[in-house]
């Protein structure tokens, strides 16, 4: 299904305990089936925004609306909604004491109450999808960074989330492993999964992004669709400067 806003962020503010204002009135929407790319300089608040979306951080003001429901400020609703959002971290955060298979099936079995055999079958399919069918029994420490990140993606997908959030998932990887992870993400985008992708990979952003949000200093400076328009003709000076520094 396409069309309609799945996530809507309305003028949210977030100030960390240190006194640093990381988000200053950010608004944006993510449509169903859309791949939204967020770019911006380091420290502009991109990670903070994703963390506020999935409730890892509390917001100070504004509203986060997911699927028509205001989840900010309602702890119970947010806990219920959390499995609908799959977050993939820059640092993988796999569970080192569990095998790849156990990493993937833990949440479906314990949270969604799926039967173990069923969860394993589904996990097997996901591992195939990310090209790691032969690694089910391995521990995270036995995998390369790129492999670990693909397992992390499979782990998030196993919950059947309705949106996937990616926070610079290739930044911690060696250059030769970036491609394999981006390829998986491209497939997901092509399948029509709703995705929010924070990335420094501008080639990927341009190719896959159906819309781009440019953030700077805790604010959304510019939104453009399709993504290529942003890279070819940025509307603001700040965006132009940002792009000049990168290319």
């Amino acid at each position, binding site marked *: 299904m396409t069309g309609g806003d799945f996530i809507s962020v309305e003028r949210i503010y977030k100030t960390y305990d240190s006194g640093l204002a990381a988000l200053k009135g950010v608004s944006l929407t993510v449509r169903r089936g859309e791949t939204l790319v967020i770019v911006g300089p380091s420290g502009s608040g991109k990670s903070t925004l994703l963390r506020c979306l999935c409730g890892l951080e509390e917001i100070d003001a504004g509203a986060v609306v997911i699927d028509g429901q205001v989840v900010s400020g309602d702890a119970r609703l947010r806990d219920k909604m*959390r499995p609908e959002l799959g977050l993939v*971290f820059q640092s993988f*955060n796999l569970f080192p004491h569990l095998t790849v298979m156990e990493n993937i099936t833990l949440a479906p079995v*314990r949270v969604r109450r799926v039967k173990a055999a069923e969860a394993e079958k589904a996990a097997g399919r996901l591992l195939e999808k990310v090209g790691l069918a032969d690694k089910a029994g391995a521990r995270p420490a036995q995998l390369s960074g790129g492999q670990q990140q693909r397992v992390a993606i499979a*782990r998030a997908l196993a*919950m059947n989330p309705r949106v996937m959030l990616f926070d610079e998932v290739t930044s911690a990887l060696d250059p030769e492993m970036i491609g394999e992870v981006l390829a998986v993400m491209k497939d997901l985008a092509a399948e029509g999964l709703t995705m929010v992708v924070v990335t420094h990979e501008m080639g990927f952003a341009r190719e896959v992004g159906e819309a781009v949000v440019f953030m700077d200093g805790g604010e959304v400076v510019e939104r453009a669709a399709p993504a290529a328009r942003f890279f070819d003709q940025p509307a603001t000076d700040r965006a132009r400067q940002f792009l000049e520094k990168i290319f």
Partner: protein
Amino acid sequence: MNSSSHFTPPQLRRRAFGLFDAAVLAAALAAVSFLAWQAAADLKYGWNWSVMPQFILTRGADGSWRPGALGLGLGLTLKLSLWIAGGAAVLGLGLALGRLSGSFYWRMLSRTAVEAARNMPPVIMVFIFFFFLGSQILPWPRLIEEIRSLPPAALTTLEFAAAPSGRLAAFMSAVCALAYYEAAYFSEIFRGAVLSIDRGQWEASRCLGLSRFQQYRFIILPQAGRRAAPQLAGQFISVVKESSIVSVISLPELTFRASELSATIHQMYEVWLTAALLYFICNFGLSLLFGRLE
């Protein structure tokens, strides 16, 4: 520059036995020999080690081996230590989770419990549990009656695992007192291990929808437990040594047996040296065993 010397780690060269090490060793040997010589020459004392083995292990009339007084004491010491450590681990984990809780009430409660345990001498806690709680407040006597009426098999098992029913009240109050005392240290170990787990583990599991209980059970505690294992093993050895203070309530563990024996036979020095040696062998053996397990 010669490339092979370039890659030699500096520590390797320093490992050699130097002049300073030799001096320290010589001084230590001299001190020990002096004491031994003093003991042999000045002390008007008839050493007789030959009577000692029978107090560890002895042959009964029917030819079967059975523990002597010190052997029995060592057995009770180990039993006590296992009970104390088990109780301390459970209670310590609870206190650690309490101190890490989001609720101010639980944090204060467990903090208070830990501080109380840490700031009182364990020997006094053993007395308090035995005299005040054990005889006045806790329903030990009634409990003991109940236990005596258990089916014989269960009673035998319990008496083997703990103490004969006549001494069960003392045994249990000693276990409670020291388990509580040690729980403060166990809780510190658990707390440190939980805090050492990367924040990303909490965040990833939370994003997947795990409840706090599930996070602890499936993600945090399995990793924290593994990290805490070496310190827990070390703490167990402390427990074995610490258990010697229950001799003050006449529980016949190793220290109590030694003091009893040293008062009844002439070989006082041999008795205490043997007891010390038994503690050492037991604990050193345990630490070797734990080291092997890791």
